[in-house]
């Protein structure tokens, strides 16, 4: 496997401009002769599809939801970063770049991150032009707030629904192109494999979730914008349908998979309430602007929070990290919460929770001021817990939220398979070992609006038409494989439900590959997961038929992939003998329990190559070169 990053030469600040100037272009009249498949209609996919269609390409867009507008990006609450420096507090493209590289614990590629910061400002302009109703100040200009890991206010937001508003902007642009006949949209379609001819990606195979029809689609390039794989843990803040299937199938066809163990555990989620729990709900990080995190100083303190006087409270983030306080990055905040709970100071009936308290802010700006900022989040919290957070502090606990790992891509966002691209959360590119808040929306839209539409043109101009037809043997072969797998799932007739396997896998992943990891536990998981997988293929029960809407079948297919992919995550976590960002190896920590990175041995992306079912995957390394920043120990103290 060749890992050529294709980062252009020249000074960091000029790379992207220079690269754009040197790219080959496709003649405008010829663009309509090319077809691009985009799988996914989240921020990344919808923005890419719309932009490609505007340029003149024919686009086929797919998603598994019943409407493109429902992609998981819709759930993002807090905001989107940009280096506008509207508040005049010293922000710049450089600072956004630096914060993102540092926040990622120096495990991302400088050139990609710099480009991300560069295009960030265009995103805000573009979205505003589309009619995204960003929050405004009384003077009519755009408002900003702060997010973790930054000391400037650079986060744009739309109440607590930033994701939905940005997605509606992209979705509307996409619908406009459908109207103009440039995009064909296929909702309730699940991509089950990618098809290669002569080593080049030339199409996909999908299952129509309404009719069960398995079908091939040919194109000149294929883009995966299929989101993250946090649901490997079963419980996460992701939507129920989020899956690794598309990315994993690409991996099995030869695309390198980078840093699968890099997952983000978000510090502020509503704690688990029982075995029936089907998903976890995030309380936006923006709440940490005004909420203070604390637990009692004494272990096993059963008093109601209001009865614990201030001097008996431990505002542990403010104590340990005085300069960032409650706004330390997510990985740091999550681990700190786990530590106090491990010490027996956790709150709530399970003891797995800490307080996020708004008392002081309510005293400062009044209940209405807080309602203005976070009304819908408070409402949601009350719905779920039946507690009023204006009166009693919220209880929160970390939960799986985002995956920094993903399909390996070069500077052009192309995977190791020519003609196959990965954008948005599905790729690994910009967030290293930890993502800063409000940066995923930025990255998805940067990739889709401002990067991919250029780089894909460069490829198409050079590679020319694929010439592939959906009736080619390459397609029919893959279709047969897909059908055979479905047949297998439907004929097991065992006793256990797909969900029961998913829950069991999730528990293994959370215990051994979650907030903290160690060699022994990971080795156990690597042994246990294949056993569970075997059991799955022997005794999973899937009812219903292939040629109809069959949600059990859909679930079983996704769980089957998680059961393979989970093992890869554990392997990756085991070989990375350091602690960095969201990856905390217990063996590698300082005396105060802070992460110990090892830049000598691990300043690289770990990229896995599939070597066949049952065979060990091969590990490749993309060394990360830092020419513009000095690697320092991340300190938020």
């Amino acid at each position: 496997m060749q890992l050529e990053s294709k980062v252009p030469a020249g000074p960091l600040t000029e790379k992207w401009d220079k690269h754009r100037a040197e790219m080959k272009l496709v003649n405008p009249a010829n663009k309509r002769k090319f077809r691009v498949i985009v799988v996914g209609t989240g921020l990344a996919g919808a923005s890419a599809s719309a932009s490609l269609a505007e340029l003149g390409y024919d686009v086929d867009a797919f998603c598994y939801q019943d409407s493109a507008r429902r992609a998981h990006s819709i759930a993002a609450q807090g905001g989107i970063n940009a280096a506008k420096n509207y508040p005049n507090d010293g922000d710049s493209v450089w600072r956004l770049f630096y914060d993102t590289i540092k926040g990622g614990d120096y495990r991302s590629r400088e050139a990609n991150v710099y480009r991300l910061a560069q295009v960030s400002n265009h995103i805000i302009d573009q979205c505003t032009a589309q009619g995204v109703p960003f929050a405004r100040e009384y003077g009519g200009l755009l408002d900003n707030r702060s997010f973790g890991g930054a000391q400037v206010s650079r986060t744009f937001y739309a109440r607590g629904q930033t994701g939905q508003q940005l997605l509606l902007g992209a979705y509307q642009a996409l619908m406009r192109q459908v109207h103009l006949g440039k995009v064909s949209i296929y909702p309730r379609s699940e991509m089950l494999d990618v098809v290669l001819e002569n080593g080049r990606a030339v199409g996909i195979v999908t299952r129509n979730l309404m009719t069960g029809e398995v079908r091939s689609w040919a194109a000149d390039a294929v883009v995966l914008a299929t989101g993250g794989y946090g649901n490997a843990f079963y419980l996460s803040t992701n939507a129920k349908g989020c899956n690794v299937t598309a990315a994993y199938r690409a991996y099995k066809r030869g695309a390198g998979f980078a840093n699968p163990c890099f997952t983000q555990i978000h510090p502020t989620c509503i704690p688990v309430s029982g075995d029936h729990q089907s998903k976890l709900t995030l309380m936006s990080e923006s709440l940490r602007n005004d909420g203070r995190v604390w637990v009692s100083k004494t272990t096993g303190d059963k008093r109601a929070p209001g009865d614990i006087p201030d001097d008996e409270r431990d505002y542990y983030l403010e104590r340990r990290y005085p300069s960032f306080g409650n706004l330390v990055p997510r990985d740091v905040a999550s681990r700190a919460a786990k530590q106090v709970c491990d010490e027996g100071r956790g709150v709530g009936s399970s003891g797995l929770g800490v307080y996020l308290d708004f008392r002081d802010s309510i005293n400062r700006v009044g209940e209405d001021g807080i309602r203005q900022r976070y009304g819908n989040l408070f409402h949601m919290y009350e719905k779920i817990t039946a507690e009023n957070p204006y009166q009693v502090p919220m209880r929160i606990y970390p939960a799986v939220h985002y995956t920094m790992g993903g399909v390996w891509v070069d500077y052009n966002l192309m995977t190791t398979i020519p003609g196959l691209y990965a954008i948005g959360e599905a790729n690994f590119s910009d967030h290293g070992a930890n993502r800063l808040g409000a940066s995923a929306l930025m990255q998805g839209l940067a990739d889709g609006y401002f990067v991919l539409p250029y780089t894909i043109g460069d490829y198409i101009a050079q590679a020319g038409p694929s010439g592939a037809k959906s009736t080619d043997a390459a397609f029919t072969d893959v279709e047969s494989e897909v059908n055979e797998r479905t047949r297998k799932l439907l004929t097991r007739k065992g006793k256990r439900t797909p969900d029961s396997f998913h829950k069991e896998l999730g528990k293994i992943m959370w215990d051994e590959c979650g907030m903290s990891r160690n060699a022994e536990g990971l080795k156990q998981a690597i042994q246990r997961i294949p056993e569970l997988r075997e059991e799955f293929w022997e005794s999973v029960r899937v009812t219903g038929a292939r040629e109809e809407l069959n949600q059990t079948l859909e679930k079983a297919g996704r769980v089957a992939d998680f059961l393979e992919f989970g093992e890869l995550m554990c392997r990756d976590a085991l070989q990375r003998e350091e602690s960095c960002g969201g990856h905390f190896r217990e063996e590698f920590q300082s005396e105060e329990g802070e992460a110990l990175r090892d830049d000598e041995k691990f300043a690289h992306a770990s990229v896995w190559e599939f070597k066949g079912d049952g065979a060990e995957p091969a590990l490749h390394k993309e060394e990360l070169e830092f020419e513009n920043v000095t690697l320092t120990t991340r300190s938020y103290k």
Partner: protein
Amino acid sequence: MKLTLRIWRQKNAQDKGGLETHQLDDVSPDMSFLEMLDVLNEDLLEKGTEPIAFDHDCREGICGTCSLMIDGVPHGPDRGTTACQLHMRTFKDGDTLTIEPWRAKAFPVVKDLVVDRTSFDRIIQAGGYVSVNTGGAPDANLIPIPKAEADVAMDAAACIGCGACVAACKNASAMLFVAAKAGHLGHLPQGEVEKKARARAMVHQMDEEGFGACTNTYDCEAACPKEISVEFIAELHRDYRKGLFSGR
């Protein structure tokens, strides 16, 4: 708590369908409504019976996928709440609940509780956007927008496209959905330019799709999980009329 569920089962669009009764003996008040259905479905599957098909994804009240008629009320009895955010503590031990899909000609049933809402997408395709391409947008702060006006746009933009308004309406009208989109864009200078044409195109498509006419009964507002105001409907009527006469 114990519950009796009467649930709509329908094999496919052609099937006539009917209600099926299930008993649940151990429902926790902390469960969400959908988690309660999960428990039932796991049970059915273990017995080898086909689980009940229902739509859902985010389970946070934002994606608009869940779409259940609970005792004749879209999303159930809690105001301003989607079915996925509805918790079982709302109900009492011993209750009998009837669960059905959205009913509207423009939302045909696919299976059990799942309906086809692509008609909403086609309404947006007809004109629910600002016609700008990627690139070349002016600085976002070039046009100041009064906060009050931006807030109204945001109130309308909160629509999650679930279709509860249609399900609640005796005429199965999609007027609140259309009005919310038109109101969101129409209250912003960026969207104002195409306001009349947009109103005309979207209303026309709504009729094409077989949604009914709006007779101002306002059941839509009461059912809307995002509590979108019917005032947007009045605005839409105005813009629509202007659109017809100005021909723009």
